[in-house]
């Protein structure tokens, strides 16, 4: 079965939306309130397209493709509507890009730029809401919220934590935990899925604030250091420091598909804690004193040699680590077996 998009014949599978078919065929349709893991709601109207014989413009993210459909993604009618939607979204709150953490990685900013919306026709609201940054993980700037509902859907459909929802109507509508309480006073478990999906600067990593944003940050893909799930994540680096942890909004690899938990997303800052050990130390007269690597390595090697000579290889034991790499664990057991000559190696697999 096929549909025609911008004059190109595109085949589709039943159940695919017009947006998905277009994307598969390399035809760009902008979206804001839609992400691949979530059920489409067609709320923001940014993805509208013109379908021949349809009465009105339709939201392509929510419209299932039907055999023989003829779709136009970029007509004047579409562009006028899309621009109006973006103007309304831009004047829904205060979108101050100068200090916004999402600048450079903001769906609304990209839309406004690509459509050339320099001065929206509508006034901004007069009220400026205070930024909520009372917890160490997730900060909220509700001045920038466009009520796309992605955070609500991510919390309920991806993480199934059932904490966030809409409340209020019309101009008082908002998103957040029940009864308007702060995140830290709600049932929120700080997985940060809402931050991941937020297309604007309304939800962001508290500890990363003013530490660097898209363009300043180098992303290094790695595996989480905590539990055995092995979530893939991107360390965001600036000036040799981890500024925040992110995961891609789309096309995220297995096993986690972009989801993390509080430890993965917000538990990285131990790495530059002042307690980090920076020098080898040898105990002298009951006190640990700094030593050079040469001294420390010689001390260990000499002691091991003496103990092995006097008591045999099996008087020496090693505990490897469920936290170290395969390469390190491999070398550790090779050291004990091939160099020391004992099988006394274990680690805390049981603990």
């Amino acid at each position: 079965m096929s549909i025609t998009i911008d004059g190109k014949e595109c085949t589709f599978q039943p159940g695919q939306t017009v947006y998905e078919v277009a994307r598969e065929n390399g035809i760009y349709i902008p979206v804001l309130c839609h992400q691949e893991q979530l059920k489409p709601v067609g709320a923001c109207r940014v993805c509208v397209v013109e379908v021949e014989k349809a009465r009105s413009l339709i939201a392509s993210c929510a419209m299932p493709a039907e055999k023989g459909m003829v779709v136009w993604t970029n007509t004047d009618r579409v562009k006028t509507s899309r621009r109006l939607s973006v103007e309304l979204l831009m004047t829904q709150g205060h979108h101050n890009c100068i200090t916004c953490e999402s600048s450079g990685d903001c769906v609304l900013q990209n839309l406004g730029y690509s459509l050339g919306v320099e001065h929206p026709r509508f006034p901004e609201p007069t009220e400026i809401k205070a930024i909520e940054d009372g917890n160490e993980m997730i900060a909220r700037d509700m001045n920038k919220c466009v009520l796309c509902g992605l955070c609500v859907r991510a919390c309920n459909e991806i993480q199934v934590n059932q904490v966030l929802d809409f409340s209020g109507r019309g101009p008082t509508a908002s998103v957040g935990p029940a009864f308007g309480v702060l995140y830290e006073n709600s049932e929120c478990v700080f997985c940060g899925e809402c931050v991941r999906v937020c297309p604007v600067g309304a939800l962001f990593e508290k500890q990363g604030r003013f530490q660097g944003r898209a363009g300043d940050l180098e992303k290094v893909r790695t595996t989480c250091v905590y539990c055995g799930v092995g979530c893939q994540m991107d360390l965001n680096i600036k000036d040799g420091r981890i500024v925040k942890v992110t995961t891609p909004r789309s096309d995220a690899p297995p096993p986690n598909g972009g989801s993390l938990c509080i430890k993965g997303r917000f538990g990285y800052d131990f790495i530059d804690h002042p307690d980090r050990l920076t020098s080898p130390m040898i105990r002298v007269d009951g006190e640990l004193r700094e030593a050079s690597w040469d001294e420390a390595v010689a001390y260990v090697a000499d002691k091991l040699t003496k103990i092995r000579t006097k008591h045999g290889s099996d008087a020496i034991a090693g505990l490897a680590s469920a936290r170290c790499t395969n390469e390190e664990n491999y070398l550790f057991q090779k050291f004990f077996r091939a160099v020391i000559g004992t099988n006394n190696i274990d680690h805390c697999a049981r603990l």
Partner: protein
Amino acid sequence: MTNSIADIEEADCFLITGTNTTENHPVIATFVKRAVTQRGAKLILADPRNIDLARFATVWLRQKPGTDIAWINGMMHVIIEEGLADEAFISERTENFDAVKDVVKKYTPEYVETITGIPAEDLRKAARLYGQADAAAILYAMGITQHITGTDNVKSCANLAMITGNIGRPGTGVNPLRGQNNVQGACDMGCLPGTLPAYKKVTEAAERKICEEVWGVALPDKPGLTIPKIMEGARKGTVKALYVMGENPLMSDPDITHVEDALSKLDLLVVQDIFLNETAEFAHVVLPTAAWAEKEGTFTNTERRVQRIRKAVDAPGQALTDWDIIARIANRLGADWNYAEAREIMDEINKTTPSYGGITYDRIEKIGLQWPCLNPEHPGSPILHSVAFTRGKGLFSPCEHIPPAEEPDATYPFILTTGRILYQYHTATMSRRSRGLTSRTPEVFVEMNPADAQRLDISQGEKLKISSRRGSIEVFAEVNDRCDEGVVFIPFHFSEAAVNRITNPVFDPVANIPEYKVCAVNIEKAA
């Protein structure tokens, strides 16, 4: 895991036991919660605590801690009685079924209720759900293994999967959720006293051969000591030197007072870590290492997927990678190791570890591969045992219920069970140095039932003294409905009230795993 994480999407029914998944493997829990709420999959939860997953459970079996063999045997009893066993699978793929059939005969739901406290009807319901599902997956963690019957508990899970043919297909399996980022890899790499890389037995000459050839030395053939035996050896003076890389036995091992005694008797204790942990208090030498974001390498996750870690920032001061330190000490002792980078160690792992034979950095640049992956063309193995088991036929192992080593009595009337919480991690050397994580749980606590609290006149947040035959610790009362009456829970993350001062140092005879999930304690107000 016999199966893959993504595979959870395919299950019609889950049996989740001994894992507080939403707290300890939160991202895997999201797969389960989605399957239940969005796809109508059934969830059987067997857990003594009212954990978050209980909200999502089709049936929640609240067993008394330490009675897992009994309820699993009970499920098999019902499955056989009601004709839900997969006869074809049993006859084609397994052996020794009759022995299990004989043993479970007496485990009627009514008999099981007297041992476990699980209402007979709930057990029947659970057995039917599991037995009738097209694809049912068992997920478990330390709640199954940390018992003196840990090995038999796992065998019971395997029995249950085999009796219903729930293994080797998508959405099925016996799936242990591994607790640490690379506990799977550390085992795979041979950091166990009886096995070389890829679980080759040290006692078998033929199995030692690959490593002996690649390493160019003859290897010891006597199995080494497990952690509890190492500590015992240190206490007795037969173990003189201990080299600890990235571990903290003074927090993680049972009966810490005895561990202190053991460590203080060593002639040499080397602690190699990123922080001066509790164990380092006894160290003769402390070696600073690079953390995970400061080095290259691989971790193997719970579904056997080997994945890259990459250097993103520099290590502080003079800290070196663990592999570099080991190589320096080895070379000082006469080895001639010349690894220039982690990748070269993986090249050697490819040669000595058949299950990792085809896992190279180039192949896992974007997405990791699941072992066994035998050669550069092998696609990896998302599901194990699909055609045959490792030993050929799946072996049914009859298991009888054995009570925990220590049960409550008049002096120690409560059952203490221990574990992790969402906001901290293991011995907490890292997580308690994270601002966000620490802000959520600054203090150690004991979870206890409101009825128990009322009886003992204990109020929320009150400081309590928890004592066992090994010693006592002071913690704050967290009164809620998570624990049943007579059961309390304390997380093991907090050094100022290290719960392993009071846990029972008794072990599963095969796996040597300590019985952290059950010991007897007394509760009183702190002076």
